[in-house]
């Protein structure tokens, strides 16, 4: 086996996964797939096939089972994306409050189309309502909520990220 085709899950993540498994009846391994993928995605930004292989190996499940899960849930990115993920909710409540303008503003500002990614930003094509309708229009940046958006607010959020380095 070729070593650069191999991903060793860092031991702290293995420990977390093993702890996670304690929540389930003895012998059930699949319930940790989603959690493991979250952990690996956090580490690597997106999920490559070697990651899927390694999860399958660690949990002793079929690769196709892991692949099915990775491809089903919208939070798992299987293609290379930028460092920060921005998801603007464009569902009904947000749309009624101008989320489309917010999205176009971000597209222009970051110079990426929705669904696409630059090195720094991934502008996710978010179809699902993010459960903050009372704060519409809203978005998530790396899964943190930002509500009642205005252009000024967006400028500041982006500036903060860029300053952060």
């Amino acid at each position: 086996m070729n070593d650069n085709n191999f991903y060793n899950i860092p031991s702290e993540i293995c420990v977390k996964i093993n702890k996670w498994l304690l929540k389930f009846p003895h012998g059930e391994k699949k319930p940790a797939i989603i959690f493991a993928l979250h952990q690996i995605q956090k580490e690597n930004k997106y999920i490559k096939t070697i990651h899927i292989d390694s999860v399958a190996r660690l949990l002793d499940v079929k690769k196709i089972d892991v692949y099915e899960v990775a491809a089903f849930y919208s939070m798992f990115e299987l293609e290379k994306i930028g460092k920060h993920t921005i998801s603007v909710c464009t569902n009904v409540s947000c749309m009624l409050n101008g989320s489309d303008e917010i999205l176009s503003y971000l597209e222009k500002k970051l110079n990426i189309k929705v669904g696409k990614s630059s090195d720094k930003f991934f502008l996710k094509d978010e179809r699902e309502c993010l459960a903050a309708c009372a704060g519409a229009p809203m978005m998530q940046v790396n899964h943190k909520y930002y509500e009642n958006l205005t252009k000024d607010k967006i400028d500041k959020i982006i500036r903060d990220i860029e300053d952060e380095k």
Partner: protein
Amino acid sequence: MKNNIRINELCYSTLSKDNPNSFETYVSLGGYSTWKNIVLSAYDKKEIIETVMKSGLRGRGGAGFPTGRKWSFINQDSEEIKYLVCNADESEPGTCKDRDILRYNPHALIEGMLIASYAIGADTAYCYLRGEFIDDVYSSFKVALDEAYKNKFIGKNVLNTSINIEIHDLIGAGAYIVGEETAMLESIEGKKGFPRFKPPFPAVKGLFGSPTIINNVETLASIPKIMENGPEWFNSVGTKDSPGFKCFSVSGHVNKPGNFEIPLGTPFKKLLELAGGMKNGKKIKAVIPGGSSVPVVPGEVMLETNMDYESISQAGSMLGSGAVIVMDEDTNMVEVIHRIARFYYSESCGQCTPCREGTGWMFKIIDKILCGNGNLDDIKTLESIPKMISGSTICALGDAAAMPVESFMKNYKEEFLKYIKDKKEEDLYQEKNNNKEFVLHKK
């Protein structure tokens, strides 16, 4: 009109305090006293279920099924392993009430889960939060859970008795369908969220093949107060078929969108008032009263309707999850349904034929109409597809996708027709929608 409504007395009762989500706040308001009482006096399980039944509490996740009845389907005394699952996948468009419970009153949910587990004889409970909460309320919920563990309300030998109950936090990864109860069970088992066909029902064969009860966050968070103050306290407000308090998430064209926990049966007018009235003084055009999957109701009808299960049903819609989306007179209804149809198209799990194929077909026709390429046949087809989907799918997502389209076509057909008759004039919309070119949900 004077606002003398009782507000935020149940699930949002900590809201008025300084540190609403802290353990101390919850305890200072009498929190966990019910649970302590149940544990220390070894309460009769049947009695709990009876109390819940008497209160008339109905499931707040959308279907409105009486909670006590649901619990009674389980044989509490059998030796079998049983599970309780809390549905915190809040993803019905327009709904944001559960997130606020998780944010501001997590201990009420925990206590509710404990009582429910005890009542159905489960010693393991799972709280499944939607994936998008992972860096938001998921972390704070875990903190709350730890506190409850630390104080021996959960775990092995609760309060040094022989009772063992574990509550585990779980996290999803982004899929609306996982809110459907059997899809959630699949997801917990580590698979993709394909709903199971019923029968068998989860109460017979659920998580890992064992009897399982699934309840919404709000449903479970309501339990401690109902137990503490008695069922009469709860059903002294509301109507006969819709007793008690309910959280409504009001969003859309209103001045003060937000979550309001009010007695069921409150006139919609009052709720609108609580939400600050219509934005910019515009006239109300339409309301979706229970999340995007219920039929839309014209504004004038809604203004005469009370917020309870029966009245809304009479108005031709459903109370659903209590997500009230308000639209003003300038709203383009074709655009709204376009957005809703797109959502269901993206979120259909793909398992069964009518939903997998039907949601895409509806969206593509609406898209075509919106882009000015529609014809009268499209309108006819669009009217018939929802009927073809309804009732023939494995889970209710099929109906959820069909109902809005059907109701928009019924109530606002002339707006669709306008797009067809007046193509030129709508060039504007075409341009507007061009840059939103639709890509299949594929990775």
